[in-house]
């Protein structure tokens, strides 16, 4: 059923006059999402705009998205739109622009810090499905931060990659690549 806490939050953000779309997740979550935020999901945008559908109060089921992910996506996209507006307002004022950038970075750092690796991966899959370019770019960058300086095993596990090297092959490529690891401690 709907996560009342999140639903209330979303409704509190939207003003009475803002149009909303109802999104239903595969695990039964129901969200009323502001139109501007929902239009950030290209899968929805093209559904409406490309197909020339009339935007009436319809309910859309998102089969590949769970409610936990959707609530995070809505949170990020709402803040992203706010930062976009602030940035536009600060245009021309270098100091103000920098402040907005720093504020955004602070939010993004906190946002991603709270995510476990599993959650990060689920979010990426959801965002990839919903086709939200900006958020996907952000999550991909966060992935790079997660796997930086990590062992081969860690990277495999993160991306569900199956090792198809023989032990001899592994040894050999390890030696070939040793030059990049000179002076670095083993992980």
């Amino acid at each position: 059923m709907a996560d009342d806490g999140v639903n209330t939050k979303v409704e509190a953000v939207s003003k009475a006059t803002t149009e909303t779309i109802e999104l239903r997740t595969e695990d039964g979550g129901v969200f009323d999402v502001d139109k501007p935020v929902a239009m950030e999901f290209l899968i929805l945008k093209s559904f409406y705009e490309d197909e020339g559908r009339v935007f009436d109060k319809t309910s859309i089921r998102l089969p590949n998205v769970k409610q936990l992910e959707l609530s995070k996506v809505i949170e990020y996209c709402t803040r992203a739109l706010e930062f976009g507006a602030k940035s536009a307002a600060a245009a021309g004022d270098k100091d103000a622009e920098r402040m907005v950038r720093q504020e955004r970075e602070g939010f993004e750092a906190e946002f991603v810090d709270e995510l476990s690796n599993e959650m990060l991966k689920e979010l990426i899959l959801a965002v990839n499905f919903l086709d939200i370019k900006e958020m996907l770019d952000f999550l991909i960058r966060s992935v790079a931060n997660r796997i930086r300086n990590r062992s081969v095993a860690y990277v495999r596990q993160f991306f569900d990659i199956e090792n198809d090297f023989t032990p001899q092959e592994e040894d050999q490529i390890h030696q070939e690549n040793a030059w990049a690891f000179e002076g670095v401690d083993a992980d």
Partner: protein
Amino acid sequence: MEASYSMEETGTVGGGVGNNNNNRATITSIAQDHLLTILLLLPSDSILSFSMTCKKFRALIFSDTLWESICRRDWGSKSVDALKSSNLHFQQQQQLPWMRLYKQVFRLESVSCHNLTYPDSELLVPRPRASHSLNFVSDCLVLFGGGCDGGRHLDDTWVSFIGKGFQKMLKWQKVNSGIPSGRFGHTCVVMGNLLVLFGGINDHGSRQNDTWVGQVACHETSVITLSWKLLDLQSVAPPSRGAHAACSVDDRLMLIHGGIGLNGLRLGDTWVLEVSESLCYGAWREILTYPSPPARSGHSLTCIGGTRIVLFGGRGLGYEVLNDVWVLDMPEGYHKWVQIPYELPKIPEGVSLPRVGHSATPIVGGRLLIHGGEDSYRHKKDDFWVLDVSAIPSISVQQPTTLNSRGLLAKMWKKLKANGHKPNRRSFHQACADPLGCYLYVFGGMIDGLVQAVEPPELRFDAELFLVELVLKL
């Protein structure tokens, strides 16, 4: 009247790796689709770790097209484009082996020196000097001014055509004298095809603050001319000085710092010169930031790709010889000096790092090659060090940290072995690199006198020209 829609099951269809039955994208397929983006944010060791996960990713990552992007990221576009055009010029090959090149540059551990000084005394060569300027511009080596015995200044300009390949024999031509007026301790930087000269001191002890621009013109095969003209300034010029440091930034600006001013006091100010497109006008403005490098002279300023500048060493207000490293990032309209602290005792032979009158030249790979100079006992050096500051994240918000944070400062300093010709120990010499950043030309400077253990130490000027070749091996 509420309609209900259901979005299609299919997400992005990735490649063959890891797709499940529903045709939904998996984390593995997404990794493949965004591989370049991810790798460009990782240091080379992490990139190779990724390549060791499975055969598919190894094949994807062992691509020279990908490594060209990594070279571009770590060395700068200028370096990569210079290598590409040089390759076209000589070998007409399809593509350079970028992954192998990256590895060679990464593993640089020695240089090879070649003597370029003519034993033949019939040929006209520049006389011994120090605190002159030496630059590589428009395929030529250009030498101007400097000081010689008796504390006298020189005002001659010499040019030698180098062309695209490195040559073992150089022919100097004297192309000018008298303009600009004689001086030593001035600076001269290259901005595109232009030389920009500033300041210096003449043998009356007068410090200057005039700004000159010079252009080389090659007529026919061996006739070279160089025209110098005074730059018309649209704003106030920095206070007069000599023994300051300068570098060109991004081919449109010149940065200067410190030096010894009118009353003999060491300065610690930073100024930027912007030259107009017509090359007739220039405007100076001071950069005021806190903190900033303390006052000093005989130090070095080097631009290592894009808008990142490194300051090193010199002699401070209390006459002490310094070894501090400062980095200035200059993204649009925002400047900040950051000191990079490091511990001398942790660096092998690091005790020899403090120096003044050294040369710091940008070489391929976005690093500095530091050579010579003297220490607080006026002992001159002949060593070669590579200074790598890529570990320090740029203050520009878009820059990711691509280096191993654990080894943050471990690779900052590396002393290189030197083979071949053994140059004299020297200070207040000049060095400049070829456009590829693989060869360094070094000329002149002060070397040890013939009579040892004499107080005060005998000043001896040198006229040796030698070539330093980076030994890039697999």
